[in-house]
């Protein structure tokens, strides 16, 4: 197990290095490069810009600039926002918790529903329920998330007036119920795709376990259907879902960006889009790098959990 983990960790570090390389390339792709904030400043001549470039070390070879940038990234100096001059990391962390709240709620909801639907579909394979769940999941994967959000707003906020159409709280009302009411629609929208994915994978995983010898043995021993299902089938079918949770992170993060935009949720995704609008590249790069790191850590954690729970991986 030790060797497996060290290998996996080494792999993650190489990928992280490549991620930073891609990030740096994108940063230099920005119009005007890292100095773009001055490009529109009136009264700034070409000579001035060159002087600032020299001061900031931007006239050095790219490779040296890269390692300088990487070094500062590692010690937590992610630059300052063009918009208000505050440290990038501080601004991102301010918005992070709203995104984590939304993602956490949605993940919990979609894992519970998705796994339930997946098991039910596999156990009653080819039934009407299974067929509807399969087709429903496929359509859910094809609905543009933001459009589903618009439909949800139209139905539940504008027509029925049950739920608020956006933002995180009603001004002047800080109660938990108010938070929850604002959380429902974004969670619904973000969960749509994830329920679909989870149910598909859980169905496939359960079907795979259903055919195995130990299930037949358990049944032959005379164990009750419920016991076989919960203790033998589901327990084993859940193992691949740990890896899936890690792999789904980029999808959920991307979905959160869309949901936050439609529902004016004050999270990281919305901050990202606002920052693009203001050409606030340090914040944009910060969020891009942070989400990649987040995804890599998630995948690493998932592999670690699989290695702990599944002896086959450890011994392989």
């Amino acid at each position, binding site marked *: 197990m030790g060797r497996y983990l060290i290998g996996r960790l080494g*792999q993650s570090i*190489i*990928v992280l290095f*490549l*991620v930073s*390389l*891609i990030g740096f390339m*994108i940063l230099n*792709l*920005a*119009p005007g490069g890292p100095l773009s904030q001055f490009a529109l400043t009136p009264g700034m001549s070409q000579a001035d810009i060159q002087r600032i470039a020299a001061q900031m070390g931007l006239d050095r070879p790219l490779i040296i600039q890269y390692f300088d940038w990487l070094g500062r990234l590692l010690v937590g100096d992610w630059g300052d926002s063009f918009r208000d001059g505050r440290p990038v990391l501080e601004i991102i962390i301010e918005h992070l918790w709203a995104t984590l709240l939304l993602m956490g709620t949605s993940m919990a909801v979609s894992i519970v529903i998705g796994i339930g639907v997946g098991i039910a579909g596999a156990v009653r394979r080819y039934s009407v329920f299974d067929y509807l769940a399969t*087709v429903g999941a*496929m*359509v859910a*994967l*094809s*609905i*543009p*998330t*933001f*459009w589903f959000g*618009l*439909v949800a*707003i*139209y139905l539940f906020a*504008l027509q029925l007036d049950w739920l608020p159409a956006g933002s995180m709280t009603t001004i002047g009302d800080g109660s938990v119920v108010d938070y929850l009411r604002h959380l429902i629609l974004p969670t619904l929208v973000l969960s749509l795709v994830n329920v679909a994915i989870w149910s598909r994978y859980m169905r496939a995983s359960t079907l795979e376990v259903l055919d195995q010898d130990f299930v037949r043995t358990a049944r032959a021993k005379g164990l009750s259907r419920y016991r076989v299902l919960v203790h033998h089938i589901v327990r084993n079918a859940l193992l691949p879902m740990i890896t899936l949770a890690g792999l789904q992170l*980029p*999808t959920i*993060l*991307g979905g959160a*960006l*869309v949901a936050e*935009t*439609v529902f004016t949720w004050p999270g990281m995704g919305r901050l*990202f*889009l606002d920052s*693009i609008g203001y*050409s606030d590249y340090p914040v*944009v790069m910060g*969020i*891009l790098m942070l*989400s*990649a*790191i987040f*995804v*890599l850590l998630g995948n690493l954690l998932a592999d670690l959990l699989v290695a702990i729970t599944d002896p086959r991986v450890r011994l392989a």
Partner: protein
Amino acid sequence: MTTMTAAGDAAHTRHHWWQHRTLSRFLRHRLAATGLAIILMLTLACLLGPHLLPYDELTVDLRARFSPPLTQDHYLGTDPLGRDIAARLLMAGRISLLVGFSVMLISTVFGTLIGVVAGYFRGWVGSVLMRIVDAFLAFPSIFLVLVLSAFVEPSPFMITVIIALTCWMEIARIVEAEILSLRERDFTIAARLSGASARWIMFRELVPNAMGPIIVAATLTIANAILLEAYISFLGYGIQPPLPSWGNMLNSAQQYLADAPWLAIVPGITITLAVSSFNFIGDGLRDALDSRSNLP
């Protein structure tokens, strides 16, 4: 697994024999066949439709703005500038479908190339290539596409390239896995022993035998690309008006949601229809091309 080996080796000699069976198996998949029919009709409508409608997609008529569907000749209503939605929808379809297909072509060729080289050479070449794939996969694709499209001139061509840049990794992974197993097969060894060059083995022996999974992944890529285009155009960083795309037609829809819901409903349903059709086609192809699902 044994049937697959047999099929793989037989397919190497001549793979015309399964073509008929694949086709009939695909058409037996009712949803996939329906999806194919919908895509054909949609493509045809987008190509011919604009010539048959009474309005073109750019004619502004402020007196007729916000007409609900079925007002006079505006079958699907008009938008906030009084432009005919039916005409815009079909012209937008040309762009959105073209972006989808082009992304599929670019990312399939590129992803296959990376996957074949990584799978055939293995060793450090393979590891480096696959770690690059992992690195690209670590970025949520919407984030990456948005950043890049904000940095460049958002022409339809650039949008296509940018979306393709975030869609090739899945294909590279699938191809690499497939090549890793194919390269140990007898026909590859035979080709190597008879002195075939690495290029010949990769592109004449290995890729043709990996075509099944590649075609399935390519179909699903179209669906993904249409969705991504819709996302970024909706957010204002994709296809720029006055050029219509399914995504940017939804641009102003949120603002007028209460008074003109058809602005949101019409393009949204069209996107869902197109994307789910491609997804169903991909699903049907997977069943039809996978020799393991020989069972009824």
